[in-house]
């Protein structure tokens, strides 16, 4: 900024623009800088890989921010699973308490799927939500994403253009 102040005090002259480039000074002790969330916390044991026909019993332990008055949980399972427990849970909450629900499901078909959770708390008269996703593998363990350099995952609708280094998506062409 100093350079701008000095320029501002000088008489106008024809001058080539001077780029402003900063030296990086951040600490090397980097974590992930995540987005803020509603103040709903989930703790669980990641489920073992299942075989078709296996039953899944998964305990989910929730805590909520101190000011929350109510916790609602909605459970959805992917189509490789059949949910056999309730899908909706509701608690009146107090500070520092843990709220547990048990999800029961049966493995129907092979694949990488998930249990998704829509959770909502009531805080100071306002509803605030946070979503969670729990990966579940049925059958042979499959990686939903490429973890090996040199392997490109193809997906419906997307065309891989290796030569140009792009994942091509068809545009909708309009005349206006």
């Amino acid at each position, binding site marked *: 900024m100093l350079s701008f102040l000095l320029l501002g005090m000088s008489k106008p002259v024809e001058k080539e623009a001077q*780029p402003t480039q900063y030296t990086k000074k951040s600490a090397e002790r980097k974590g992930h800088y*995540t987005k803020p969330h509603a103040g709903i916390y989930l703790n669980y044991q990641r489920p073992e890989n299942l075989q078709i026909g296996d039953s899944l019993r998964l305990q989910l332990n929730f805590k909520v921010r101190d000011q929350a008055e109510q916790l609602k949980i909605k459970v959805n399972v992917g189509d490789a699973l059949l949910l056999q427990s309730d899908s909706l849970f509701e608690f009146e909450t107090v500070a520092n308490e843990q709220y547990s629900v048990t999800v029961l499901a049966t493995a129907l078909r092979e694949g990488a799927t998930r249990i998704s959770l*829509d959770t909502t708390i009531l805080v100071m008269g306002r509803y605030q939500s946070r979503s969670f996703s729990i990966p579940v593998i049925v059958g042979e363990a499959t990686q939903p994403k490429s973890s090996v350099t040199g392997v490109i995952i193809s997906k419906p609708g997307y065309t891989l253009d290796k030569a140009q280094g792009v994942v091509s998506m068809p545009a909708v062409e309009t005349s206006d």
Partner: protein
Amino acid sequence: MNYLTKWLAAGLFTSLLSCGGSSSEPVTPTASCTLGTGTSLNVSGTITFERIALLDSGALDFAGKTSQPAKAIQVEAICNSVIAVTTTDVNGSYSVVLPSGTQGVFIRAKAQMVKSGVPSWNVEIKDASQAFSLLFALDSSPFNLDDLDVTKNLLATAGNVGSTYPVDALRAAAPFAILDSIYKSMQLVLSVEPDLIFPALDVKWSADNEDGTFYTNNQISVLGSTVDTDEFDEHVIAHEWGHYYQDAFSRDNSVGGSHTPGDILDIRVAFSEGFGNALSAMVTGDPVYKDSQGIASGFFIDVESNNCINEGWYSECSVQSVLYDFFDVANDDIFSLGFDEIHEVMTSNIPTSSSLTSIFSFINYFKNLASIDATDVDTLLAAQSIDAISDEYATGVSDGIYIIGSTDVLPIYDDRALVDDPPFPLTDVCSTGDNISAAEVYGLGASRFIRFTAPSSGNFSFTSSWSSGLSTSDPDMYLYSNGDLIGLGVTANNKSETLVTYLAAGSEYILEVLEYTYVDLDLPYNRSASGAINKTCFTVSRTSI
């Protein structure tokens, strides 16, 4: 208008590619294009994308879908290889000149904003599901150029059907919506510093991305899974871009991690996250931070509201409230400054400050600006239960009223070693788990900061030895010089840790001492567990070696 139109002769371009080592494999959509040799024809149009709006609750508003221009993105004409390159303007318009007689050419809009010169930037949206580095691109169908100019308008669709996303929906709008939010973020900064050189930024997104939305090391990950899509959540993207801004142009000593307004946070985390929240409101012009969750739910923060839970200098909410009040033109506060002064402190003062990044360092320098009335700043701080800030080390600042537990977290910077003779050893350097509200939350007081100066130049050994608290203790230490990490001691040794480093005579340093048990992500600490010991103390010594 920022048009850069180039018509590259196919042969020349091929030779350039071979010099650069890039592949010359045929382009997939038009393997059989024939480049014409006739008169010049104009191919022009607009590149747009669908944006799904958000409701006040933060939830997606599928009925509020609009088409918006894809600004400043790279557009190519491809006939086996790239034969023309241009950039869209603020209306999403582009234009290239191609030879008549060309058969099978197509237009490609890349999910990339790139500009050389001054200012400059390079932002790319890449497929998070690929181990390869693959950029998203929107392609037209192939077309022929006979003897008339051609209009090609390309729309990237959101992929929703009604209020849901079908399985395997093609969500072409997402990369361009993300770019649009980053474009707006860059514009805010360019409005006060037009000649900025932005370091390259990679963004990873895919329709199945469940890695989280976060910033780390010049890369932003954006959630795409329908459990939580973030591509249309402008505040979320601007928040993460705010971390990039701090990293690129300022300094950020935050260790990151989970956080929510209301948490009682380490001062570095509170400032970093509060800055991101405030910046998102500045960028979007919308003081209500919104984050859609799943298909029908949402999360929001009223950045303009000064009604923070657990307000104080350890609160990201208080930080965002103060920063946004400096910026905004609303009549609810004293200031209406815009971004100038904030940017000046962030880029001119924070990078060279000797303390760690926090609201104290920011306010200290902010109050010193000629255009700022320090008394007004103190008034604004008082509204967030923050005492007047007189220096970057929080001298004289009192405990916030909402701090949990009995462990004293003051002074924030322990300066006994600056005044005592001898300066070391220091007893009762206490780390606390009192403010660890949940897993991954870096609560206030877990880390303690010791200021000292080096008595002579040479190698020194620091030891942190357990004196009370957890029976199984894992002390760690980090050493900073002007905010740069210059040494660490992070072994898993029980009850003792050592850090060896070189010190320069007369220079000031900050030693961070902590009990790792309180911040261990693999074994989240539970302050409320039966028998929990939320205070562990150490004796810190220094020896010349």
